């Protein structure tokens, strides 16, 4: 029963992530998130600075939002986070979370 639930839940997540996507309409956030790849690796999986793929969307978003708000010092990544709108940070966090 637990397994079945887990499988269903997994498929549901996969379906949510995949259903709207096509070559014509790629997953929202993917192109935005590709701005991360130069320093964190293709799809956020390294090589590079911290791997950023596969955390929960909220974990990723909260970190970026803190940086964007200027509460995380004055490093390059803080500067980078300030380049996006809040909505863009949510979109790219959502996409990065699908990369496990």
């Amino acid at each position, binding site marked *: 029963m637990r397994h079945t639930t887990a499988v269903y839940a997994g498929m549901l997540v996969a379906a949510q992530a995949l259903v709207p996507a*096509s*070559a014509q309409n*790629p997953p929202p956030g993917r192109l935005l998130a*590709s*701005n991360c790849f*130069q320093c964190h690796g*293709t799809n956020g999986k390294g090589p590079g600075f911290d791997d950023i793929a596969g955390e929960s969307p909220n974990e990723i978003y909260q970190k970026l939002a803190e940086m964007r708000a200027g509460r995380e010092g004055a490093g390059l990544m803080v500067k980078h986070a300030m380049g996006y709108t809040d909505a863009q940070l949510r979109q790219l966090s959502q996409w990065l979370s699908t990369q496990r």
Partner: protein
Amino acid sequence: MDRRKILLSGAALAASTLPGCGGGGSDAGTLKNPLSARDGAPAGDAGQALNPLPPPSAPKARVIVIGGGMGGATVAKYLRLWGDAIDVTLIDSSPRYTSCILSSLVLTGQRTLSSQVFGYGSLRSRYGIHTVIEPVTAVDPVAVSVTLKSGRVLSADRIVMAPGVRFDSVPGLTDPNAMPHAWKAGAQTRVLAQQLAAMPAGGVAVLTVPKAPYRCPPGPYERACLLADWMRRHKPRAKLLVLDANPDFVTEVDNFTRAFMDLHGDIIEYRTGVEIDHVDTPSKTLFTNGGAVRADVVNLIPAQRAAWLVKATGLANATGGRFAAVDVLDYASTAAPNVHVLGDASATTQPKAGHIANQEAKVCADALSRIFAGGSPDPAPVTNSACFSTITMTQASWLHAVFQYDAASRTMVAVPAASGASTGWSGGHYEDMGVWFRALMADSFA
């Protein structure tokens, strides 16, 4: 066991029915047989090379990429990762790319030239990209075809040109190696390194900065800083004269002002608004609007324009005929809708540099993937530029910008809060520079 099988088949199904989605996930990433997914389906674990992507057996579109540098390699890779069965051919006259980024460290003996070299093996084996190593002699923007030196003609649905820059000729420079630019990494990098090593103690070197726009805005200044530190250690009493055709530092003004005037003030002499009229090669003399300058070593970086093929194709229609005007939603030339120009050869509000060429390439690949599937480019692309500047042989600064598309001006506009440099320089930033370089090159070539 059963659960695993279900997940695997689910992942395979998702991959086979929804090509073009990059979100393969870990289960898709463990599929060993790439043929279980349809041609053009994404490599779910592209960074790890677990499931190579063969060329599409039934291509839905064809793209020819001219130029295997930062922009060309990246657009080829991401067309294969993101597109639905797009057949990609990458053409370059050289079988390998030599990175300009970090190449000034070859001048100081801190890196080898061979460590700057990146091949196309991964693009072929992991992403199914065809490579043709041959010069291109002509591009027909209407027929969308490319003529190679051998006379062979290749055609495609779209052509992406990322051929980089060429250098203006300098009157009187009869032997380019006598005053090397070393601004395209390779043979001239080695020549300049040898000339610097042979420079006498107490000698004078000159570095010239061309009028903007040129490749890598902070590059000449970071090279000057690096050479000054190297001279301090290896060439006692030597001087470095920096002749800048611009009225001031083109970028990162605070850091370079401090470095030139304070840190390296005993070695660097900085003159602005200096333009080279002509040179005398045998005597290594530059004749400028500020008088004649003779030196032991001359690093003459000429003004730049798009590679000749861009002009020959009729696409050099911006910046006084030097660079190609493009639509930054998809990098299509404004003069030829089926030919795209990105990287240093295009005229945009973005800097000419490898890191942002990589992102321009992703915007172009995403746009073409959508267009081939009957859609339109993302109406609000974002790009970023990031780089590190060597202020000494062991310390660096960083420089960064994020650009958002502005629909009113149809240009990429720098976000003020996200644009700027580090406050000063440090050994930590120097270490970060190495991490950045490895990541950037892997995202472009591996």
